[in-house]
């Protein structure tokens, strides 16, 4: 895999004008600011993630301090430092920032840095998309920050329960902005999941079967799978919510049947997997660090992995344990109580495996070990208290109290504890310097005391109602302890920041492997690793890591420090290009032979994300699909348009930019052996899109069931326009098929005509739909008329948005084909077809459900 094709966006065909420009040649060094804006290298991106997430930790932490100050004593309205709405905003923003903008990205910083090394890959499959994930993440966080200044951010809690989440109750523009920020964040997560899954399944070194995959990589693999599906459901929830807030649909309004319940289903279908999404990487760090510092392979490794796989699957079948106090029926509550108890069993197995490993090994109490050991203790407490909550009867008592708050802080911040251990563990690898061990241990001591001082009293004071700053006065001493603990915990990070910051510059130089018994591949290369990770091709053919170098086998130990960063960007080509027997040897395209070696720089991910940021910021003040009157409204509208132009422009620029993905020889690729990276990525993306539409259709079916299925009339009184559109879409699918046939036959005009026909048909579909909507509007139907109309317009509207996106790509492809592209390499046409047919398939279900049944 050598050329642009890993950049799966149908736009990025690379064509055959191989522009030999300077990509990779003028890749700036790590000391240059420019480097950090253009880099697509996984290690750079990993560091960006870690640094950014720590920034959000501080932000979320300050909000937490404000809350703890307010809670120092029971307060009435207007007492304390926070006004009631400000308190609600602090609670909500704290939760959202910590869960979304700190915890997962922190973990994915490590994933970015370490996983390709552990796989034996030179980078992720789609390096530009990886940079894109980061920039979308950063800009989503900035957007969230902006929301504070637009009248106030969202104040309805991190779970965003309906109907509090609609403008009737949270009218501030900032509340909409916060929701849109989450939408942008989900975009980042989806891109990232597709990238990681493609990489981890397709780019493992020879001999590195899944069974042999290091445990940290295993947890990231499972996390990415959970993210792919869970965040698609969240995206459905958020898009519906955005539409309720901005366009005026009424899914979650008070008067809609079961609107509040609909939100809880959508949110928790995502939300429970999410708690494992944040916890699994921590588990991976625990396993890795335990193995290294006990000098022992984990006990029952196979079972440990099996347990994790089970948990990952089961995590999608327990969501209603967050809904025991809603009106769902008793049978379903019982069912979900059983699945919840079931899911705690594999966890027991994992905990025991870790404990046994410790008992059988010889422990070295370094800072990373102390942190993960502490994390294990905290997780045990958190897990046990969770089992209480999983019992329906007990939850009737505990729901909405500080018991829940204490439970999930023990598990989640327990996870953070392990990740902090991971930061110390990999710090020498990332910076090439050792941290100060004494300060590390001191950090742990203060952290651990602070943690328990903060969260344990919350169990004791469990009768405190959640999200409220008034409580029974006799609980005050416990809350005061907790507030003190909050400051101890927060301040302990100062020790860490000081230690790591200083050590990054003046710490002792770190050897390749500062930890005896660390066995994973990242420790076999220099600290920090060279730009392209390995000089030769890593292989596990003989059961251990070796590097193949044009035929000869060089043992790991013999390797001296590779050339560092910038030096390789020129020279790295030589070794890798010769061994570049690519997986696509069967596709000898013009550019393969002329490849210069992998690229490492592109500015477009940054620009694209900035554009998306502007679009969403511009849309934030919409209400009932209209901008506010006057200058302000005009300014917002202009922002939207400008953002749109930047977004589209950078998409095209990214498509045209010659960019070469990492060179790799296909090693272990189960279960996607022999399928091109780009195609695998496209299918993984489509699988998440299945869940997105599933969420929308699920919302429709659910609302209709609540309304009374047969009492619900389809909105269009006449199915014929819908039928005509079915014909049009089917025909356009057929022309896409013809386009691919023509491309494979190198039939240029056949290709251009078929693509052009597809484009025209797509326009026809939209025009027909526009006329139909126009007609319905004239009949007095609008998005907000009733929930029936809301579901019709929004679901078919989402589909139309997919059509529009497809048309943009079709137009691009047609123009490129006109100039002779895709005849040598038709993959872009093929991938576009996969997407287009999917959009067609969705319509095949929307049509009967919304027009005839």
């Amino acid at each position: 895999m050598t050329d642009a094709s890993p950049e799966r966006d149908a736009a990025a065909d690379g064509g055959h004008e191989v522009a030999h420009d300077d990509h990779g040649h003028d890749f700036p060094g790590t000391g240059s600011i420019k480097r950090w804006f253009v880099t697509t290298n996984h290690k750079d991106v990993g560091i960006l993630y870690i640094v950014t997430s720590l920034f959000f930790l501080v932000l979320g932490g300050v909000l937490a301090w404000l809350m703890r100050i307010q809670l120092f004593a029971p307060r009435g309205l207007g007492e304390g430092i926070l006004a009631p709405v400000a308190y609600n905003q602090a609670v909500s923003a704290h939760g959202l920032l910590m869960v979304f903008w700190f915890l997962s990205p922190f973990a994915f910083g490590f994933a970015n840095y370490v996983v390709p090394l552990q796989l034996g890959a030179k980078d992720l499959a789609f390096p530009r998309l990886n940079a894109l994930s980061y920039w979308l993440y950063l800009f989503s966080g900035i957007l969230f920050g902006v929301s504070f200044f637009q009248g106030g951010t969202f104040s309805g809690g991190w779970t965003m329960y309906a109907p509090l989440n609609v403008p009737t109750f949270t009218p501030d523009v900032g509340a909409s902005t916060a929701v849109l920020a989450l939408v942008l964040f989900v975009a980042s997560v989806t891109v990232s999941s597709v990238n990681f899954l493609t990489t981890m399944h397709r780019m493992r070194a020879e001999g590195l079967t899944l069974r042999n995959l290091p445990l940290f990589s295993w947890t990231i693999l499972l996390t990415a799978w959970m993210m792919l599906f869970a965040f698609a459901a969240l995206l459905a929830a958020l898009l519906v919510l955005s539409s309720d807030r901005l366009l005026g649909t009424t899914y979650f309004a008070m008067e809609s049947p079961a609107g509040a319940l609909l939100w809880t289903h959508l949110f928790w279908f995502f939300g429970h997997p999410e708690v494992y999404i944040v916890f699994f990487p921590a588990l991976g760090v625990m396993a890795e660090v335990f193995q290294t510092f006990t000098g022992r392979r984990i006990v029952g490794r196979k079972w440990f992995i099996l347990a994790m796989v089970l948990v990952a699957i089961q995590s999608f079948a327990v969501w209603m344990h967050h809904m025991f106090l809603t009106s769902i029926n008793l049978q379903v509550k019982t069912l979900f109580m059983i699945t919840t108890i079931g899911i705690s069993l594999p966890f027991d197995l994992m905990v025991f495996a870790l404990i046994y490993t410790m008992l059988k090994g010889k422990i070295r109490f370094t800072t990373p070990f102390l942190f993960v050991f502490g994390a294990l203790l905290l997780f045990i407490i958190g897990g046990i208290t969770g089992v209480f909550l999983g019992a329906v009867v007990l939850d009737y008592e505990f729901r909405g109290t500080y018991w829940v708050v204490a439970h999930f802080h023990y598990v989640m911040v327990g996870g953070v504890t392990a990740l902090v251990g991971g930061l110390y563990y990999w710090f020498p690898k990332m910076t090439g310097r050792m941290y100060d061990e004494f300060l590390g241990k001191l950090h742990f001591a203060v952290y651990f005391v602070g943690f328990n001082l903060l969260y344990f009293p919350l169990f004791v004071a469990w009768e405190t109602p959640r999200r409220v700053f008034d409580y029974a006065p006799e609980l005050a001493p416990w809350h005061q302890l907790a507030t003190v603990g909050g400051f101890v915990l927060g301040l302990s990070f100062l020790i860490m920041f000081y230690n790591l910051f200083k050590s990054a510059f003046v710490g002792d130089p770190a050897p390749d492997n500062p930890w005896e018994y660390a066995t994973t591949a990242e420790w076999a290369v220099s600290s920090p690793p060279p730009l392209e990770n390995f000089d030769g091709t890593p292989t596990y053919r003989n059961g251990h890591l070796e590097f193949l170098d044009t035929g000869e086998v060089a043992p790991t130990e013999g390797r001296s420090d590779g050339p560092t960063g910038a030096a390789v960007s020129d020279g790295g080509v030589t070794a890798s290009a010769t061994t570049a027997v690519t997986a696509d040897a069967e596709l000898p395209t013009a550019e393969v032979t002329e490849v210069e070696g992998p690229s490492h720089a592109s500015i477009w991910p940054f620009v694209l994300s900035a554009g998306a940021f502007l679009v969403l910021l511009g849309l934030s003040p919409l209400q009932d699909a209209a901008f506010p009157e006057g200058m302000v409204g005009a300014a917002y509208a202009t922002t939207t348009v400008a953002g749109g132009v930047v977004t589209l422009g950078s998409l095209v620029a990214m498509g045209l930019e010659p960019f070469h993905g990492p060179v790799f020889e296909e090693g272990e690729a189960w279960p996607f052996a022999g399928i091109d990276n780009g195609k695998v990525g496209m299918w993984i993306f489509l699988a998440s899109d299945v869940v997105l539409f599933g969420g929308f259709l699920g919302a429709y079916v659910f609302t209709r069931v609540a309304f009374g299925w047969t009492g619900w009339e389809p909105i269009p009184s006449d199915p014929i326009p819908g039928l005509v559109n079915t014909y049009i879409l089917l025909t356009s699918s057929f022309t896409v098929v013809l386009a691919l046939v023509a491309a494979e036959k190198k039939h240029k005009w056949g290709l251009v005509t078929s693509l052009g026909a597809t484009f025209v048909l797509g326009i026809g579909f939209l025009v027909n739909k526009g006329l139909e909507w126009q007609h319905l509007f004239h009949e007095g139907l609008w998005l907000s008329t009733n929930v029936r109309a809301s579901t019709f317009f929004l679901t078919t509207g989402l589909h139309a948005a997919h059509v529009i996106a497809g048309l943009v790509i079709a137009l691009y492809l047609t123009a490129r084909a006109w100039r002779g592209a895709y005849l040598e390499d038709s993959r872009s046409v093929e991938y576009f077809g996969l997407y287009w047919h999917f959009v067609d398939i969705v319509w095949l279900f929307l049509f009967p459900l919304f027009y005839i049944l």
Partner: protein
Amino acid sequence: MVSTKLYTAIYVVLFVSATVQVLVEFAGLSYWLAFGVIMVLSAAKAVLVAAYFQHLRFEPRSLTYLVGIGLVAALALTLAASYSLL
């Protein structure tokens, strides 16, 4: 792999079956019978498009399973949520 002729035949089948769906609606069947027939027709069409136009039939089975997993997740959400109301 697949000849243009077969593609064309599939296209015709899809076209006709979309028409049949609307005819079924007007055929005066009971609501739930018509519902069943129409959804089965939709599913059949979807399978045809996926199998031939997206050539899943000729790819390693893993891609089909991948989409299947997404489908199962979506159905689990829809069905369990709807059931919880009853």
